[in-house]
């Protein structure tokens, strides 16, 4: 028997007045995977999560979470889903353990084992030693970890994590990624929304790139990047190259961008096999200060599909 999808989103549309926030969007999330919603701010990622969780109602389309219709079987979904919103909505004046007790009363079906579960999760997120401290004394990373522990408290099958590492320092970010991956290994399904390409690349098994509420690409990060068929070349020269199109005309290049006077960026098929030849061409009349040849990033994928960078 085929494994049931964790989430099925079929042709959903949501408008706010004239603004189309989500436009005929479809995708599925398999059980046990980390699925990413990647897109710039305002792309509609949080709205999509709100629609999947039933916080908003789609004007068209269907959403099923673990086989339950989100509109008619909301409570069944809520028993099995956890959510860490973008704004960490913890009670700042309560201790970490009191925040968990608050959540337990509202979410946990089995209250007999909840105390052990709290200890397990606070140890898992390295917060056990701070369990009695008010949350307002925690760092941003600690708050996100506590929010994750809270979302996991009722042992949900699917966890929605909106911008997991927003405002979190590097150490905290790596710790959070590890926690998410550990939970995935235990069979949890994660849906994360992010505009951080490194996060999406590192964490997600598959992702959908969202722009203006529409899906513009959906695959594994590797496949999305492999589909680009070119390498990205960045060079610094002195003096600056005045007519790059002429200089690079022997090569299969495209999208030449001069983003600083002495810095050029272009896309080139199989650049890694023609590096020496390219360097020779440039150094005939210019001094080459640096050259970087990279496989396309998810930002390049986004640029390819939308004509603008993800960070813009």
């Amino acid at each position, binding site marked *: 028997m085929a494994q049931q999808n964790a989430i099925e989103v079929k042709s959903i549309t949501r408008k706010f007045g004239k603004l189309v926030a989500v436009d005929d969007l479809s995708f599925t999330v398999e059980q046990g995977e980390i699925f990413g919603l990647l897109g710039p701010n305002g792309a509609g990622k949080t709205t999509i999560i709100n629609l999947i969780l039933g916080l908003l109602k789609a004007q068209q389309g269907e959403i099923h979470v673990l086989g339950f219709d989100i509109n008619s079987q909301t409570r069944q979904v809520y028993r099995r889903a956890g959510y860490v919103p973008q704004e960490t*909505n913890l*009670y700042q004046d*309560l201790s970490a353990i009191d925040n968990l007790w608050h959540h337990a009363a509202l979410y946990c079906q089995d209250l007999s084992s909840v105390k052990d579960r709290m200890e397990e999760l606070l140890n898992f997120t390295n917060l056990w030693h701070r369990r009695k401290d008010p949350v307002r004394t925690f760092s941003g990373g600690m708050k996100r970890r506590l929010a994750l522990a809270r979302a996991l408290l009722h042992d949900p099958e699917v966890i929605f994590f909106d911008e997991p590492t927003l405002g979190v320092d590097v150490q905290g970010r790596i710790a959070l990624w590890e926690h998410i991956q550990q939970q995935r290994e235990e069979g949890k399904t994660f849906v994360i929304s992010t505009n951080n390409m490194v996060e999406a690349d590192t964490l997600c098994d598959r992702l959908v790139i969202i722009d203006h509420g529409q899906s513009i690409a959906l695959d594994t990060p590797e496949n999305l990047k492999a589909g680009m068929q070119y390498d990205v070349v960045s060079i610094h020269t002195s003096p600056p190259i005045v007519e790059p199109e002429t200089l690079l005309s022997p090569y299969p290049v495209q999208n030449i961008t001069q983003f600083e006077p002495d810095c050029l960026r272009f896309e080139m098929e199989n650049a890694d096999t023609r590096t020496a030849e390219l360097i020779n061409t440039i150094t005939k009349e210019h001094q080459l200060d640096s050259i970087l040849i990279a496989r396309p990033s998810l930002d390049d994928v986004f640029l390819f599909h939308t004509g603008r960078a993800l960070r813009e």
Partner: protein
Amino acid sequence: MRRFSLLLRNEFKSFLTAPVVHLIAILQPTLMYILMSVIMVVPTFEMRIVNPSSSLGARFIAAVDEVGSPVGPDYIEPILVDDPSPGFRQVVEIIETDGNSTALQTYGYIDSNLVKNLRNRLTAALLVLWNIDLGDQGITIHEHPWLPNDIPYTVYFGMAMIPLAAYLAAAMIGGYLMAQEFENGTILIYRLCPTSYPLILAAKLTRLMIIALTGAGILYLFLGLITGIWSSSFIAVFVILIPLILIASCIGLAAGLITRSSLPSFLIALASAFAFWLIGSGFGLAAGFSTIFEKISRLIPNTPIIEMMFPYFYYERQVAAHPLAAKLQLVGYTLSSLIMLVFIYQKRVLSKDR
């Protein structure tokens, strides 16, 4: 039951999120009462009867005894004087219009019903005398420290503040904390939780009930300590308060749900508490004022509450015209408030069409 007790535990933990607001809401009426009881005049009565050497004075005292007083004969202390003092506002005048004689008496708006009942008895006593021979003499009345058998105005005032204390604590804390859930984003926890919302609301109402009863209890304690007079049934007084606390909790929570902002909900709770107190028999029983005021006052839940509490502070004297009607009114208000709260909670928290 375990879930409900956990929910209740969460509710009480919320004290830590706003301790100052809790303390203000619980203690403000008591502090106000203590302050006002210091500055408030204790109204009891002293009569000055003109021409003490005449036989009229003695006849008037006999007439007062004959008519009686709702608070006992010791309440009135007649003092015979030679001249009516024109400076006294509360003068009973005998005037003649078109050949008919009339006893004219003026009430102040904040006079308690007790005062008015006394004056009515005095008027009656005067009318007894009038039949004999009043002539051109008058009687003046002024206030003096209270007498042993009287219950002073501070007791009525304090008793009428007990509903205020209960209302204020429930509405203010309910509204403020509910609005805080929106301001801090924690309302999302309630929107996504699988627990049934009537259970959540029941925990919130129970918490507000306990806090409001605590606020009312503190005032009750100070009322007794300051006046030395304790109600005949502590439990009955607090049972009577329950519908008002539920109404106040619903209004407070609804304000928080609608405004989603702590300051407006705080102000709504404060304004409604004081409006209900002032209009709802806070300074005197509704029946003691004008007909229009009484009608308005009877729409306020405080009025039936105070009328039902009255016997427990005033030697079992029943003042509510229709005790059953008052009970039905309170039941109706309470049910309406609960229905309103459920409706607003559904719209503001659970609704998806936003």
